């Protein structure tokens, strides 16, 4: 992709829950301005990997470097100020708070109230349903609307890297298309995206780089187009390790 320093570099990452190892020594790079995706079956360790990058989990080993700076020892609430925003699995909007309040929380680290208000108006234009329901509790939104809210909320921190954990989960296919179209728009605006999904086919269409994860390891990695056409993809998805990854790196 590019010759420079990657925006996000993960090296030798290990995540353990007690005796269970969820992530077994992962290396990952995401360059500025690209969409990278991680696909794999349920339980592959994808969410654990994102959680470790976001600071929710402390890795047992390995390093996470963002924009050239190691994230080790940074408190969970300080990660977002580094420029990393997370749209977690299950969206986690604040159901009892209004749409407006959810978005304000997305800007929790910002002090420029005027610019925040302008950003919110921009998102209300981009997601008209959120604007129409801005004073309603977020719990009253549909799943697709909550996903839009979770993405808008993450963007309000003005991140350099947006990480999304299974944003298509539980959404109608047309809504998924909208979400993915939005991700392409965001990439065009210069935001780097790390996307985790179970459904590989749709993701590869918009991704630049892809990783296949299974059993806590990357079993295949490379350019998204190359991986999509790689005959070894099915085996990699279901856990067979490929000693030589497909080209593109």
């Amino acid at each position, binding site marked *: 992709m590019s010759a420079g320093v990657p925006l996000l570099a993960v090296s030798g990452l290990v995540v353990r829950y007690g005796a269970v190892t969820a992530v077994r020594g992962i290396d990952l790079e995401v360059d500025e301005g690209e969409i990278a995706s991680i696909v794999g079956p349920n339980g592959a360790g994808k969410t654990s990997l994102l*959680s470790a990058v976001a*600071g929710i989990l402390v890795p047992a080993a390995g390093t996470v470097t963002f924009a050239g700076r190691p994230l080790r020892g940074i408190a969970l609430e300080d990660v977002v100020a580094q420029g990393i925003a997370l749209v*977690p699995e299950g969206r986690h909007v*604040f*159901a009892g708070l209004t749409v407006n*309040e959810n978005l304000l*929380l997305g800007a*929790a*680290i910002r002090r420029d109230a005027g610019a925040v208000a302008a950003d919110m108006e921009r998102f209300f234009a981009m997601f008209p349903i959120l604007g129409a329901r801005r004073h309603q509790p977020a719990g009253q939104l549909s799943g697709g609307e909550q996903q839009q809210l979770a993405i808008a909320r993450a963007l309000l921190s003005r991140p350099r890297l947006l990480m999304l954990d299974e944003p298509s989960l539980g959404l109608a296919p047309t809504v998924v298309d909208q979400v993915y179209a939005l991700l392409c728009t965001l990439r065009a605006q210069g935001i780097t995206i790390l996307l985790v999904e179970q459904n590989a086919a749709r993701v590869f269409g918009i991704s630049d780089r892809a990783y296949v994860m299974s059993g806590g390891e990357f079993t295949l990695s490379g350019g998204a187009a190359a991986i999509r056409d790689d005959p070894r993809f099915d085996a990699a998805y279901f856990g067979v390790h490929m000693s030589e990854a497909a080209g593109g790196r």
Partner: protein
Amino acid sequence: MERAVQIVVDALSVGSLYALTALGIGLIFGVMRLINFAHGELITMAAYALLFLFGLPVPVMLCGALGVAIVLALLTERVAFRPLRNADPTTLLISSFAVSFFLQRLLILVVGSRLKGLDFLPELGREIRLFGIRLQVLQLATIVVGLVLLVALTWFLKATRLGLHMRAAAEDFRMARVLGVRANRVIAVAFALSGILAAAVSCLIVVQTGVVQPRMGLQLVIIAFVGTVIGGLGSLPGAALGGFLVGAVSILLQALLPPQLRAFREAFVFIAVAVVLLFRPQGLIPARGLRERI
């Protein structure tokens, strides 16, 4: 007629006291899932602050009580609860018992367990005539203080940035932190607010009873805790409502029960609590955010 109004005003004022106490407990439970029985000692210590400052101008005494309650609240958070932040709620509960017992015993050691008389703001004990009905100034003052603090707390939670962060933290603390909400600040503010509420309750109780003793806070907190449970643990409107109801109902029972049953007033209160929980196990105003987290 006069008697009926007096009973209602009495019920409203005692209800306000318990509502304020229950709010203090509810605030901490909301952000930390901690049932802070040491809240009672904030009330007790603020009362002893009044005792030690007695004779100084009233504003100084009030500031002293407020300062002691706030500092003690922040100190207990820092020393007893922050190291256990990620521990099981049961561990936190036991820690709060430990703090409560420690402070009580400390007081007994230092000042003794005997109750001490304290004639604080005797003017409030007077009666006034309002529309031809004799009412105690203190009861009216208690209702006013209760309302003012309720409105101020609501304003803080609804209209300020920090209040928004607190409400978000109460619903889903980890997600709030992912967005950059500062856990230590939110929790410290919650404890400081609970200190303010405790100091207000303390002053009103001291004026009402005229005495100070080491167990005064715990008795209040246990009843107020019952209020937060029937109101809906984790819900602040629920805590205020539940605390108010427990206080008001016990006064109404006191007034309305036949004299030979009055001694069993508490039993009737707890029967009412059991009935509420039977039909609304989540409380009258169930809380959000007691569900799954990331």
